[in-house]
């Protein structure tokens, strides 16, 4: 018999027994849906990580290494020698190494507020600050001319001065220097939003012009940060580990402090690890589900073969070969699981879209042809593997025993 005719027969047999078929498919549907969901979310996550890293600065991947001197360190000497730089530059995957100071754009600070100390985040900016609710923003000119001014957030203004209007034109003390409050920005919540953390600017309680602050703390540390610019596709965390290993064995200041990587993607790495763990867990659950579903399929096929002994006999008498009968039942079981797989894929897509629509998710699920092919392939394989034995049993029935 032609393949298409056998397949039509198989499909018809499945549709004849709708309820039984759907119940049998359920395991496949759940298993495939779980795999598709977790794959789509995983893909979406890794897409988002690459995008947020490369989008950062001029489309390049960067990682940083910081030197932390211990007490014995001679503060006058350069934390990285010229030789250190060239050693790291020679690492494969590194295109450029830049040395800079760690005086970053953010600083955590303890501020005395009404007999208590409060931890506040200070942001140093060279440009415009975030929009304000009262007063004015910081401007690039503040930075250039060295105006000793600050923008603080509503909650800090209230706890320091009672109200936002009171706070304007008063002073706030940062690192023993007084800054005039010229603007009040909207409230900054304590819990730092993950997606904000990955963007370039974190909402800070106090914003100061960078240059003004640097003037006072200038000689604390200098040149203690190396920025490695990497070629596309390199894993930043791996490479910075390598670089640190080289510095720890050959670096000029290796006896006077520690080297640490400050990888902008560490947060993403942690999230990625959690996601990986979830992926493994879901995969294990899905695998178990698929296995049990496969046994269900096998069971249903055995029942189907037993119920249709007469049909098999008639077909054999009409000239069906053993391989025709085997093919018929094999296709029936594969069609059943493929149908389940397709339904499961659809369900998985909906589930992934639903999850990525949740407000806590900073990224969207991403669907690939590979995910579809995997769902299709796995469901086909389950049908074939667990259908072989019943199909063989059907084909081996002795005609003389079933036709009488």
């Amino acid at each position, binding site marked *: *018999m032609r393949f298409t005719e056998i397949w039509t027969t198989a499909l*018809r047999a499945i549709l004849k027994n709708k309820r039984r078929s759907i119940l049998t498919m359920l395991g496949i549907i759940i298993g495939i849906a779980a795999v598709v969901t977790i794959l789509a979310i995983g893909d979406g996550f890794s897409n988002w990580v690459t995008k947020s890293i490369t989008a950062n600065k001029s489309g390049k991947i960067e990682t940083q290494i910081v030197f932390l001197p211990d007490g014995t360190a001679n503060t006058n000497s350069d934390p990285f020698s010229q030789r250190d730089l060239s050693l790291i530059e020679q690492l494969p995957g590194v295109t450029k190494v830049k040395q800079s100071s760690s005086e970053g754009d953010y600083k955590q600070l303890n501020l005395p507020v009404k007999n208590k100390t409060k931890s506040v985040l200070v942001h140093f900016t060279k440009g415009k600050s975030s929009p304000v609710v009262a007063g004015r923003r910081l401007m690039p000119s503040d930075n250039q001319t060295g105006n000793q001014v600050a923008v603080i957030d509503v909650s800090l203004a209230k706890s320091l001065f009672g109200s936002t209007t009171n706070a304007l034109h008063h002073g706030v003390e940062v690192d023993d220097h007084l800054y005039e409050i010229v603007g009040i920005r909207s409230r900054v919540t304590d819990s730092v939003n993950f997606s904000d953390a990955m963007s370039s600017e974190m909402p800070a309680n106090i914003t100061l012009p960078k240059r003004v602050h640097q003037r006072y703390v200038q000689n604390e540390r200098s040149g203690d940060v190396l920025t490695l610019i990497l070629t596309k596709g390199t894993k930043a965390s791996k490479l910075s580990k390598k670089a640190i290993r080289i510095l720890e064995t050959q670096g000029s200041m290796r006896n006077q402090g520690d080297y640490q990587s400050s990888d902008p993607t560490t947060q993403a790495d942690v999230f990625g690890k959690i996601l990986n763990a979830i992926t493994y867990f879901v995969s294990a659950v899905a695998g178990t589900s698929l296995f049990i579903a496969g046994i269900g399929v096998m069971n249903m096929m055995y029942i189907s073969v037993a119920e249709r002994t007469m049909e098999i006999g*008639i077909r*054999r*008498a*009409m*000239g*069906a070969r053993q391989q*025709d009968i085997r093919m018929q039942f094999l296709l029936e079981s594969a069609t059943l699981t493929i149908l389940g797989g397709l339904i499961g894929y659809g369900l998985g897509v909906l589930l992934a879209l639903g999850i990525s629509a949740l407000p806590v998710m900073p990224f969207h699920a991403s669907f690939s042809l590979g995910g579809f092919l995997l769902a299709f392939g796995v469901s086909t394989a389950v049908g074939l593997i667990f259908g072989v034995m019943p199909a063989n049993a059907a084909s081996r029935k002795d005609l003389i025993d079933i*036709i009488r």
Partner: protein
Amino acid sequence: MLIELKNVNKYYQNGSQRFHVLKHINLAIDRGEFLSIMGPSGAGKTSLINLIGFIDRQFEGEYLFNGKSYQQASDRTLSRIRNQSVGFVFQNFKLIGNNTILENVELPLLYGDLSKRAAKPIVEKALERVGLPNSSQKIPNELSGGQQQRVAIARALVHQPKFIIADEPTGALDSQTSAEIMQIFRDLNQQEKTTIVLVTHDSQVSQYGERLIKILDGAIIADQEVTPRALH
């Protein structure tokens, strides 16, 4: 000769007992013959036609079909022989209940590698031949016993086999319907020269054939021509 059985013996092993079902059968059937095999239940009629119809090949002796023996043939070859050369009509019709009449009748054609599209007009013609036009989309349960047996006959002749084996085709039918069914067989034999091997235990039915074989306890006890006198 289309079919030649030479000294065929068949045994059933039943526990420790060996049961001799066919005893020294010698039988030759020519093309175009209408042969009736008659005998009481348990005489070995069905065993004999299962053997002739390539359903059973556990026997001793020689069975030549068109001069060739298929006793050692593969499943593939036997299936092909069944598909090309034999048409089966059973007592209890043996239609696939879930399938439409069309799907039942087209089976021999599909297993002969025809497409459904090519098979359909042939099936319609066969249904017309047995007096059931326009019923191809019905399912077997919607038809009466006589109609179902007509469908089974259509299925047996749709692929123009070398011979048709009918195992008590009227066993489940009343005498009026039996006569109609037997008339179809008779027309097939006389108009289209189809070879028919018919099994029955009803002497009335056996009168439709040209030749009658009586079988008792596994042995042929009579082989005679049917005189047309019994027909009315």
